[in-house]
């Protein structure tokens, strides 16, 4: 098992390298001049050339990649074209905000999903099961960017209960876990949590139903095993797969809130990314994607490392 874990750890290196190659290439598959969007409309050809040199876009590709990777390893992701500010600082701030949102969404989505899944799995093929399944498949099928708009229209504008944009009355720098700020996070977090909730519900329902339908459970029950005993048995068998699905979802919550953050003006990575796309701020696009992808690689790594610990059936080299 130790050998497996070490191999899994080392395997992160080539993947991370591959990820960085793809991120680097993003700027170079882009058509046109990456500096277009930010140059003043009347800029002369000389001014354009000077700016290009300033950003190093005049050098050959492999050289640019070498420099970029070297800097990235030292935590320098270059400068945003639109603002001139270091990308790393922008991304760091945005990742913090995205983490807050993703964390809140996971507090809503995962417990609910697991609970619903258990209920539906236990009462499989009953009315409760059908209701929960319908809820779950709705969650999986709804375009959540649309759901977000609808929630804003209803709860912010029509009813006036909750704020519609931003991360608090004083912006994200003053973030605190108090009522005032939770009011701001509630709508985006619910919107973001809908899909993971649906997926976790479906997974847990299937697993629980599966285990309960197996003969040995009936046998255990017949032998007089108590309800809690059966429950313990079910939990033990459901945990590994649920953990892996939750882990993957966590990674997706981090990176996948792009549209939600745009709808709610939440100052996270998704918001940063959509700004980067509209301003064609490619270094910012590149840096944000790189950091998010590495987060995801890391989340997958944790899940894979944790898997053999919770699942005694898996015995790897």
């Amino acid at each position, binding site marked *: 098992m130790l050998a497996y874990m070490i191999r899994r750890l080392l395997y992160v290196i*080539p993947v991370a390298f591959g990820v960085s190659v793809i991120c680097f290439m993003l700027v170079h598959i882009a058509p*046109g001049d990456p500096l277009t969007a930010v140059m003043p409309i009347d800029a002369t050809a000389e001014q354009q050339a000077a700016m290009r040199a300033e950003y190093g876009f005049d050098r050959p590709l492999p050289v640019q990649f070498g420099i970029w990777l070297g800097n990235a390893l030292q935590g320098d992701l270059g400068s945003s074209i639109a603002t001139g500010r270091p990308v790393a600082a922008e991304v760091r701030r945005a990742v913090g905000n995205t983490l807050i949102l993703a964390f809140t969404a996971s507090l809503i989505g995962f417990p609910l999903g697991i609970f619903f899944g258990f209920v539906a799995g236990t009462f499989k093929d009953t009315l409760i099961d059908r209701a929960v399944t319908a809820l779950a498949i709705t969650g999986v099928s*709804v375009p959540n960017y649309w759901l977000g708009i609808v929630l804003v229209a209803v709860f912010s504008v029509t009813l006036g209960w909750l704020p519609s944009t931003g991360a608090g009355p004083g912006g994200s720098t003053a973030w605190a876990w108090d009522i005032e700020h939770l009011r701001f996070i509630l709508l985006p977090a619910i919107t973001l949590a809908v899909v993971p909730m*649906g997926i976790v519900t479906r997974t847990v329902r299937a697993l629980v139903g599966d285990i309960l339908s197996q003969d040995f459970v009936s046998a255990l029950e017949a032998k007089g095993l108590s309800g809690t005993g059966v429950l313990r048995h079910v939990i033990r068998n459901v945990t590994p*797969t649920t953990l892996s699905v939750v882990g993957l979802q966590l990674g997706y919550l981090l990176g996948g809130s792009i549209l939600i953050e745009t709808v709610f003006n939440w100052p996270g990575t998704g918001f940063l990314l959509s700004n980067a796309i509209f301003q064609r701020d490619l270094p910012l696009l590149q840096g944000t994607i790189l950091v*998010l992808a590495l987060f995801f690689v890391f989340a997958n790594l944790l899940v894979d490392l944790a898997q053999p610990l919770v699942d005694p059936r898996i015995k790897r080299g």
Partner: protein
Amino acid sequence: MSDTSTTTLGRAEGRVAGHAAAEQAPARSKGYWSGVGSRLLRDPVAMLCAALLGLLLLAVIFAPYLPLADPFTGSMISRLKPLGTPGHLLGTDELGRDMLARLIYGGRLTLMLGLLPVIFAFVIGTGLGVVAGYVGGWLNTAIMRTVDVFFAFPSILLAIAISGALGAGIVNSLVSLTIVFVPPITRVAESVTASVRSLEYVDAARISGAHPLTVVRVHVLGNVMSPIFVYATSLTSVSMILAAGLSFLGLGVKPPEPEWGLMLNTLRTAIYINPVLAALPGAMIFLTSLCLNLLSDGLRSAMNIKD
């Protein structure tokens, strides 16, 4: 993200589904398929969804022959008319164009952007996966490790990154979505192929000197296609939501083409004026994706594949 997360599920399932299908592969016969068919027919939800999707597909394909208003011309005087306006059953959009016509024509692009990337990815991914799984060795390593790198990106992130770099446009959306779906399909194809290859009779055919292409065609593809196909269908709704999401962000279809995601975006401001109208394109995406998921669930349970 509905899209991404469903993919996660798809991926997680994909691995399981692949193995399960491979295990039962040799047992497959005509009887099996007719069994699947009759089980599916007895599933009312799946059949309802299939009917709705079929109807939508027909409407979309034969849109030019339907008695519809021109989806491109409108009149400024009749902007944002409510549902049930005479001559405009579903009202008019922000440019006074007929919503019914635009929703049906819009379905063309949205469904196309949902289906084509999956079909492309199905062809490319199956090819790559079968080659990797059958040939093995360094070729397998090369293909599968490259796939791993793409797997390191959450799917929505990868789609937005590529589309964001390439810029808006239908072709760019197709390219980026195809790239997103090739890796998961390749993985399923590879694992199924690898397990089929080790089956005794395939192995025997190989050792007996049959041409590799013949072995692949006769023994491998026959066994491998259906599990991959089932998996690919489950990706269609993801693909559609993702494509509409790209258009919603301004990265997909360009105006004035009708497309549900783009319509959702351009009608956003109308949500305070005519909420029902503004909600229509989103509702179409939702209902279609719901039907696709329900149908895929039905297919899955009819084929006895466990989630």
